């Protein structure tokens, strides 16, 4: 009796999850299906599947469109940004956890408080600063204005606090400098939060849209989101090239899904790992 009850429950659970998952995955499937259609098919309601998959759509995106260049831009900017954010974040988190100094708590509160404020409120003055420094429309300007990730400081602080303080003191006794302790002892011990932080920051820089679109003007400096949007305006929404626009979206989305498939555990275990509001 109890067994059948469990069975029903399991089927029920599986059913709900399947429905929600289909709803979640469908836009992706629809994107790929549309990308493989001809111009006529994509406008035709009754053609659910493409009669003959138009792989040439993908070729024309990869060869004839500017999208690969945007991907390269996004990759370059996000790799450099992530590297900087890791260094600045790790050093600050180290100072907050292992140093004694006046205003330590106040500093942390200030940083966390900033996290909640709408970042857009900083855009006008930040824009002016970059323009004064002659860094509008440059990758340098883009990178330099995002060298700090507050989320990252928070995440690293959480995991540094798990490291026993005695360990750092012992290393100090042995004459190790704080730099070496951070990179040779703390960093390997908290490797997984570094990876989670790196991935999260990579994804958000790579996908970032509003700020880059405000400070870049020339199209050869677009990141993927902005590039895709201009591609949409030129070729898609107001034209008839929807299949190509979908192929363009797929070229940008699919590699990220593949990356996620291989790094899933760092996201899933790392993000929820500690919400840390217990402070």
């Amino acid at each position, binding site marked *: 009796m109890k067994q059948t009850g469990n069975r029903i429950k399991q089927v029920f*659970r*599986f059913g709900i*999850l399947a429905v*929600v*998952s289909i709803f*979640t*995955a469908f*836009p992706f499937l629809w*994107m790929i299906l*549309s990308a493989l259609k001809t111009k006529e098919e994509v406008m*035709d*309601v009754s053609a659910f599947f493409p009669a003959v998959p138009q792989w040439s759509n993908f070729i024309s995106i990869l060869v004839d469109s500017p999208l690969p260049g945007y991907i390269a831009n996004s990759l370059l900017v996000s790799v450099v940004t992530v590297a900087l954010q890791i260094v*600045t974040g790790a050093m*600050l988190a180290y100072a907050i956890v292992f*140093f004694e*100094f006046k205003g330590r708590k106040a500093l942390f509160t*200030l*940083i966390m408080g*900033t996290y*909640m404020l*709408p*970042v*857009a409120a*900083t855009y*006008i*003055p930040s824009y002016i*600063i970059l323009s004064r420094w002659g860094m509008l429309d440059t990758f340098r300007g883009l990178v*330099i*204005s995002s*060298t*700090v990730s507050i989320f990252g400081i928070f995440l690293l602080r959480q995991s540094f606090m798990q490291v026993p303080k005695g360990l750092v003191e012992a290393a100090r006794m042995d004459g190790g400098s*704080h730099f070496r302790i951070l990179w040779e002892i703390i960093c390997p011990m908290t490797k997984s939060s570094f990876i989670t932080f790196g991935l999260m920051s990579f994804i958000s820089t790579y*996908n970032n*849209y*509003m700020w880059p679109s405000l400070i870049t003007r020339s199209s050869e400096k677009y990141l*993927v*989101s*902005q590039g*895709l*949007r201009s591609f949409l305006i030129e070729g*898609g*929404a107001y034209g008839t090239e*929807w299949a190509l*626009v*979908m192929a363009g*979206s797929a070229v940008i*989305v699919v590699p990220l*899904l593949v*990356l*996620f498939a291989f790094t*899933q555990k760092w*996201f*899933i*275990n790392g*993000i*929820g*790992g500690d*919400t840390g*509001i*217990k402070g």
Partner: protein
Amino acid sequence: MDTVTEKKKSRKKSGVRHALTVLLFISPALIPLFVFWVYPILRSVWLSFTDWDFMTPQYHVIWFKNYSSLFKDSRFYEALWNTLVFTAGTLFPTMIGGLGLALLLRKHFRGNGFFKFVLFSPWITPTVAISIVWTWIFREDGGLANLVLSLFGLPQLKWISSSETAMLSVIIVTVWKSLGYAMIFYLSALEKVPEELYEASALDGAKPWRQFLDMTLPGISPTTFFLMIITMVNSLQAYDQIQILTQGGPSGSTRTLLYLYYQLGFQEFKMGQAASVAVIMIILTVLLSLVQFLASRKWVHY
């Protein structure tokens, strides 16, 4: 005597050294943080008291005129209302849906990992790319969304091209994207609710529903609180999906405060006006967080 002063000296010296080390470790993050966060926010407050138009270097201090003209503008009230509708409309479905999914996925079973993968995947893809796909789905004739409605014999909707359904469409896309994120947080929160609690109360004959109310909900309340703040802050700052799906339209029906800020500042170049919207957004964020924080004392159990 001599040794004492020497000790003092060396202590002073090491104190200076310590201060320098601290400074060395905090400044790489602190300097950019001040230049691109703290200073700009203060500067925005100042700009909101001016009539600066971005084109000319001169500006006049007009104090609260930006605010008073904002408070007379129906666009502002509309945007404020839209912001609240959007925030509430994304917050509750995301939290409740995320918790529901986490409860379903809590026990390990075959396919568990695959479901997590699918449900979280929207979160890692660019909002612009997926909003473009959703634009296509929301197309009036022949769009997928209307196809699904017709399968169930429901009337067709105009989705993003009608001011009545545009907000709903933007909310659907936002919830679709953030459900998995809330789910991940709840999954790890649920893991931390001690198993013994359930076993003990099951022996006492507690019904699952009572267990959920008495143990699970209080156990995960810190995560609920955290997620509420994060989701709210994210919703207040939503831009990408609005910009792609509706550009704040039709007829302002999806123009949130942030979008109004963007239009005033970066399309109309009324920097002073835009800054005053930014300041109001900051105040709104602080107020809403404060309300949640005060309320949390009643229902969050650490």
